[in-house]
């Protein structure tokens, strides 16, 4: 694919790809790296079928971000969320939302992405599996384990107390 074409696609899709990855990972550094990786791959190793290039870019970027997070184990320490150079996500409400975001950041990246895709974005299992580039069964497993992990991650928080009421 020519450089001019990729530049045009970057202008059209980069922001959307970045937003998608951030929404599924809640990690701005990983989202930027993954967005860049998707366009580098488009330049160096473009897909054979270029029908839905936006979907391909999102899939590549989401997978790259999850791989990076898995490799670096960024989900384990909570400190990542507190880094000064990382903009905190704007959440609609208060401490409860903050607790929820922090708890989400503590669970495994593939589990987090499955929970956010289905539970927050309301995607069907099939659409979420397609976006994340995984089989349907893997998506369901990640979703089940992710919900459970999130529930356990919230234990002791005010939100957990609210859930039990």
């Amino acid at each position, binding site marked *: 694919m020519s450089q001019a074409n990729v530049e045009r696609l970057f202008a059209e899709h980069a922001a959307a790809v970045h937003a998608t990855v951030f*929404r599924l990972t809640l990690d701005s550094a990983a989202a930027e790296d993954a967005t860049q990786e998707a366009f580098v791959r488009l330049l160096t190793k473009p897909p054979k079928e270029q029908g839905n290039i936006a979907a391909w870019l999102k899939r590549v970027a989401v997978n790259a971000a999850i791989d990076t997070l898995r490799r670096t184990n960024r989900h384990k320490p909570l400190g990542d969320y507190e880094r000064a150079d990382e*903009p905190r996500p704007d959440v609609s409400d208060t401490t409860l939302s903050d607790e929820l975001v922090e708890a989400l950041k503590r669970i495994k990246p593939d589990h987090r992405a499955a929970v956010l895709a289905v539970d*927050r974005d309301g995607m069907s299992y099939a659409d979420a599996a397609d976006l994340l580039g995984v089989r349907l069964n893997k998506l369901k497993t990640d979703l089940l384990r992710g919900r459970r992990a999130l529930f356990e991650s919230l234990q002791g928080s005010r939100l957990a107390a609210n859930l039990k009421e």
Partner: protein
Amino acid sequence: MLYDGNGLTQDELDVLDFVTGLTPTLPEPRSEPCEDRWLASELTDQRLRVRALVVESPPLRINFDDVLLNAAARRKGINRIWKHWSLGLMMTVAFLSGVLSALWIDESDPAYTHEPGLTLAAEHVPAGLHNAELVLLS
């Protein structure tokens, strides 16, 4: 216990669909009840909380020049790897051809067996030639 091939039991799949909101009521367990069944209402409530979470992504700070730089660095790295591979391949081919030619030497050739043939050849060589030249002549 019924399995879906991926480790999820039928009961886990039932709970999954119920919490997702695909089934209005949680069916009675058709296999051994899973742990999540007892948390189904909390997990449903948790899903609604997650649903209400509004997250706006920060602005993208990279531009197309960053992509080009990264792509150029990647290509350079790939070229370097190919150079190393091709050098290694050439050395391997040279080594193997040396080994094969050594194995395929015709042992009946008097030049390699130190049989009279070599002696005869040496006898016909003008005086004053060195050993190396003798070998070449043979």
